[in-house]
């Protein structure tokens, strides 16, 4: 097809320019906008829980099993705690886990993926094997076993174990992209200038991979939410922290559904779903922004009249003998 219309291949872009592009991309894509709004909402709640919920989640001298009311927006649980407070205060823990695990996992993935691609040879081979093995071993059961041995004393056990086990998927993607970049011209230029390998990796390669790195962060954050809430739900998190997953755990063990307190389970569950959806939407939007072929197709009616005719010169048929 005509090269004038081929999507541009990734080239170096200065940081300020990148920000403007991201902002424009987010506002123009519906999925990205919804995802961002949701995420910002949760961040605000996590930062200022006291503003939104007047009770402390540990306050437990209310009557258990109350329904909705203005004093208790979601009612109370069987311990006499205000459910609204439980859910609002639990936001912080979940966001902390999502961001910390997301960032740490992505950092490991970038390190391993780019190193494998750039160092090549034996390094590449062995890192690949490690990545593939970890990719294939089912992570959730592994996490259950780990948490089973560690008896879930703190959220940090949760964070560490998830980080250590779930970097392989994104590492693979990053390695693929790093491989395609290895021989690009601007890297050759850096090599010819005599720059050291580490410089080339950090200053030239990684900034070019920014969009994939951000996408990896979103993926890893999503997995962090899914895994951590799952682990907490089955009782392997720290049951004394206030987090959506642990709230669900208590709801389940106190048979909330069966005893007429369904919102004890539904509220945190819906929050988890919303936060997960936010990350998933952002991720999907990122895919669409990066690969225009996936964007929604506008079907145009070919019978529709075109706009004003373009500027044309007078029709002349000059006959001239050579």
């Amino acid at each position: 097809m005509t090269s004038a219309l081929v999507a541009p291949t990734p080239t170096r872009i200065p940081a300020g320019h990148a920000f403007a592009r991201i902002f424009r991309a987010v506002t123009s894509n519906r999925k990205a906008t919804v995802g961002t709004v949701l995420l910002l909402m949760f961040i605000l709640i996590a930062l200022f829980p006291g503003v939104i919920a007047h009770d402390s989640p540990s306050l437990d001298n209310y009557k258990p099993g109350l329904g909705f009311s203005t004093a208790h927006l979601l009612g109370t649980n069987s311990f006499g705690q205000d459910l609204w407070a439980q859910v609002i205060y639990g936001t912080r823990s979940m966001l902390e886990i999502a961001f910390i695990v997301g960032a740490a996992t992505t950092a490991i993935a970038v390190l391993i993926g780019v190193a494998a691609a750039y160092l090549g040879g034996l390094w590449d081979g062995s890192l690949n094997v490690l990545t593939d093995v970890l990719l294939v071993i089912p992570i959730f059961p592994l996490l259950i076993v780990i948490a089973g041995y560690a008896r879930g004393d703190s959220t940090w056990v949760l964070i560490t174990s998830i980080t250590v086990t779930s970097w392989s998927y994104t590492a693979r993607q990053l390695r693929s992209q790093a491989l395609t970049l290895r021989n690009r011209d601007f890297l050759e230029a850096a090599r010819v200038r005599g720059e050291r390998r580490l410089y080339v990796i950090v200053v030239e390669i990684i900034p070019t991979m920014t969009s994939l790195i951000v996408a990896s962060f979103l993926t890893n954050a999503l997995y962090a939410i899914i895994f951590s809430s799952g682990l907490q739900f089955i009782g392997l998190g720290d049951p004394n922290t206030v987090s959506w997953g642990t709230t669900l755990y208590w709801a389940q063990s106190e048979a909330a559904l069966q005893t007429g307190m369904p919102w004890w389970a539904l509220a945190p569950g819906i929050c988890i779903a919303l936060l997960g959806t936010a990350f998933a939407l952002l991720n999907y939007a990122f895919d669409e922004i990066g690969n225009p072929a996936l964007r929604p197709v506008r079907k145009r009616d070919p019978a529709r009249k075109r706009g004003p005719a373009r500027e044309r010169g007078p029709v002349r048929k000059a006959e001239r003998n050579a």
Partner: protein
Amino acid sequence: MRYVLRRLGFFVLTMWAALTLNFLLPHLMPGNPAQTMLSKFRGELNPGELHSLEVLFGLNTNQDIFQQYISYVHQLLTGNLGISLSEYPKTVSSVIGSAIWWTLGLVGVTTVLAFLLGTFIGIVSAWRRGSWLDSIVPPVFVVTSALPYFLVGIVLLLVFGITLKWFPSEGAYYVTTDTPGFNLTFVQDVINHAILPAMALLITLIGTWILTMRNTMITTLAEDYVRMARAKGLPGWRIMLDYAARNAILPNLTGFAMSLGFVVSGAILIEDVFNYPGVGFMLLSAVDNEDYPLMQGLFLLITVAVLVAILIADVLTALLDPRTRETQ
């Protein structure tokens, strides 16, 4: 068949990694949990059982860690997974055996359904870009694929099991009134009990598959050979299936198999919500009861199952894609 041999090699390697991980984990954990467990049960086990547990967890103080590792692998290869502490005196193998059919049934059927339905919807949605189907598919399934498994389970349980009482809300069958076997009431009840957990699993799984299939299909549809197929005047369904879908599915086969890890995770959580007596539920009770041998055994079983599925997917890819069969 070098390709298949290579995948087989990877299978063995990963199995070995899982075994070794299983062995090392209790040693890496603070507080030496294995030793604690052993001390707790020492009085109740006979010497043979005690020994097999020591080998399983590398607690034999007379040998160094490498020797213990060798004995561990040897014991596993003979099929001895130890004694279940929560279901004493049954062996781990027999305990697992009782639960495995429930999970196989639930997960097996749901996965196949999700795969078939998901692939089909993904293909059609990509084929009809810009149609109403295509405009609702991505947003709807992006949302469902991000839903935590247990939420779907909880909602279904609440609405259909408890509020509407259309389906039973726990277990695999009515333990008190049913007699297991090929009688009609039993089979009916089994199906009845399986519907909600299966639906929950299906809803959460299908999203990712639809989206992946759709995206690969869109990329494939842009390929030159699809345009050529149009140029040749081939009928639409043949282009969609024979030229586009066949090629689009190939890179996804292994991906589907790898996502089995997630299927298993979902199954564990759903079994928990519905108290469904499968392998996942058993793993969770094992953790609760600190029944480490059972935990280990289940983990190994789950890993083997996933790896076998991946191997099957690899073989399928080799069969369907003539390019992988080349020995160049």
